[in-house]
C-alpha cells in the first residue's frame, strides 16, 4: 500500500528490536520481510510524538523503555480485521447445534458464559449477543459474554459498540441491523440491551486469562494464526482449563488444534466444526 510513499527508515537492528518487543509482549510473530509493515504501522505513532521517523521512535523507546510506548507499539502491530458473522457457519452452528445442546445439559437457572477471546472492535461478541437474544427468551439475563483483546483501543471500541457505515456493511444482515442497532451521528450503535450482555476487558492471551468463566463456549478465532506452535499449544491448554468439560471451542477457518494440542475432539457443527475438550486440563 504505502511502499512508494514510505521509504524505509528502519535499520535492521531497529526492526529486530521491534520484533523482539512485540514477540515478548504479545507472542505475535513478525516474520523477516515485514519491515514495511512495521514502518507503515508505526509511522502514525512516530508522527504523533513529533519524531522524525520510525527509526527515531525505535531509538527513543530502546534507550528509555516505558510501559505506555510498549503498549502502543504492540497495539499498532496487531491486525484487527474482522466482520459481522465472519464466515457465517460457526455462528449458525452455535445457534442450531451448540445452544440446544447446552440448554439440554443445563438447568434454566445456570448462566451461559461465552468468551470472545480476541474480540477486535466487537463485531464477534455482538454477533453472538444478537443471535442468542433472538433465539433464547431471557437471554438478556442468562447469557454473559466476556469480550477481550490485547488492544486497549479495540476493547474501548467494543465497550462503546459504535460502528461506521462501512463496518455495518460488512456482513451484518439488514434485518438484524435495524433490530439491534440505532443511528448515532454518522455511525450506528448497538442497542443497550445487547451492550449489557457484553463485558469488555483487556486480556493478553499469553498473560493472565479471565476469571469470568468457566465458559460454555469460547470463540478463539483468527488469532492463533499470529503465534508459533508452542504458544498456540500453551494457549489452547490454558483455555481448555477455563472451559466446562462439555464446552465448545470455535477457531478460525484456517486454524485447528490438530498437531498442536491433542486434548480436543473436532466435531461437525452444521456446515462448520467446533472443538470439544476430551480431557480437562488442571495444570494451567
Amino acid at each position, binding site marked *: 500500500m504505502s511502499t512508494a510513499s514510505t521509504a524505509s527508515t528502519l535499520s535492521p537492528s531497529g526492526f529486530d528490536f521491534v520484533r523482539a518487543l512485540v514477540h515478548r509482549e504479545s507472542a505475535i510473530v513478525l516474520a523477516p520481510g515485514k519491515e514495511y509493515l512495521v514502518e507503515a504501522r508505526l509511522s502514525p505513532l512516530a508522527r504523533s510524538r513529533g519524531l522524525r521517523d520510525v527509526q527515531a521512535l525505535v531509538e527513543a523507546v530502546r534507550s528509555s523503555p516505558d510501559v505506555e510506548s510498549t503498549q502502543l507499539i504492540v497495539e499498532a502491530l496487531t491486525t484487527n480485521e474482522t466482520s459481522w458473522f465472519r464466515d457465517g457457519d460457526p455462528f449458525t452452528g452455535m445457534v442450531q447445534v451448540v445452544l440446544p445442546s447446552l440448554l439440554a445439559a443445563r438447568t434454566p437457572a445456570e448462566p451461559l458464559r461465552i468468551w470472545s477471546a480476541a474480540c477486535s472492535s466487537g463485531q464477534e461478541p455482538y454477533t453472538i449477543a444478537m443471535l442468542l437474544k433472538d433465539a433464547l427468551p431471557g437471554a438478556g439475563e442468562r447469557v454473559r459474554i466476556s469480550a477481550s483483546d490485547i488492544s486497549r483501543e479495540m476493547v474501548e471500541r467494543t465497550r462503546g459498540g459504535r460502528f461506521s457505515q462501512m463496518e455495518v*456493511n460488512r456482513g451484518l444482515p*439488514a434485518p438484524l441491523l435495524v433490530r439491534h442497532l440505532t*443511528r448515532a451521528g454518522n455511525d450506528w450503535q448497538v442497542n443497550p440491551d445487547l451492550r449489557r450482555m457484553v463485558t469488555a476487558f483487556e486480556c493478553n492471551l499469553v498473560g493472565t486469562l479471565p476469571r469470568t468463566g468457566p465458559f460454555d463456549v469460547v470463540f478463539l478465532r483468527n488469532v492463533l494464526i499470529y503465534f508459533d506452535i508452542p504458544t498456540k499449544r500453551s494457549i489452547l491448554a490454558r483455555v481448555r482449563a477455563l472451559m466446562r468439560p462439555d464446552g465448545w471451542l470455535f477457531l478460525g477457518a484456517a486454524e485447528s488444534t490438530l498437531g498442536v494440542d491433542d486434548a480436543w475432539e473436532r466435531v461437525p457443527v452444521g456446515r462448520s466444526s467446533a472443538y470439544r475438550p476430551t480431557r480437562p486440563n488442571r495444570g494451567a
Partner: protein
Amino acid sequence: MHALVIDDSRAMRRIVGGILKGLGYTVTEAGHGREALDVLVATTAAGGAVPDLACVDWNMPVMDGLEFVTAVRAQPAWRSMTMMMVTTESEHAQVVRALAAGAHEYMIKPFTPDAFADKLSLLGLVPQGEPA
C-alpha cells in the same frame, strides 16, 4: 448467476456490475425501476427465469427503488429474485421501510467489494467455484 443492476448513475452501474462480474455473475443493467420492470416482463414473457439478484438504487427518475421493490413483490412469479438496496439513504427508518416493502438486504454507499462478497454469501448467492 444473473444480476440486475438498477441505478441511474452509469458510473455506479459500472462499479456494482464490475464487482458482481468479478464474483462470477452475468449482469444486466437498467437506469431506473421502470426499465428494470420492462426487463423482467420481457424475460417472463419469453419464458426465461428472472435474475437471481437485483441491486437497487433508491433515488432514480421515472420509478425509484422503493416503487420497484414494491412492484416486484406484488408479482408472485418474481418471488425468487433477491433484492438488495444499494443506496446512500442511511437512516434507520429508511432501512426499515425498504425491508417492509420487500427488499431482502440493504447496502449503504459507499461500500467495498468485500462488503458485497459478505452480503452475497449471507444471502447464499455466491456462485459456486468462484474465488472468494
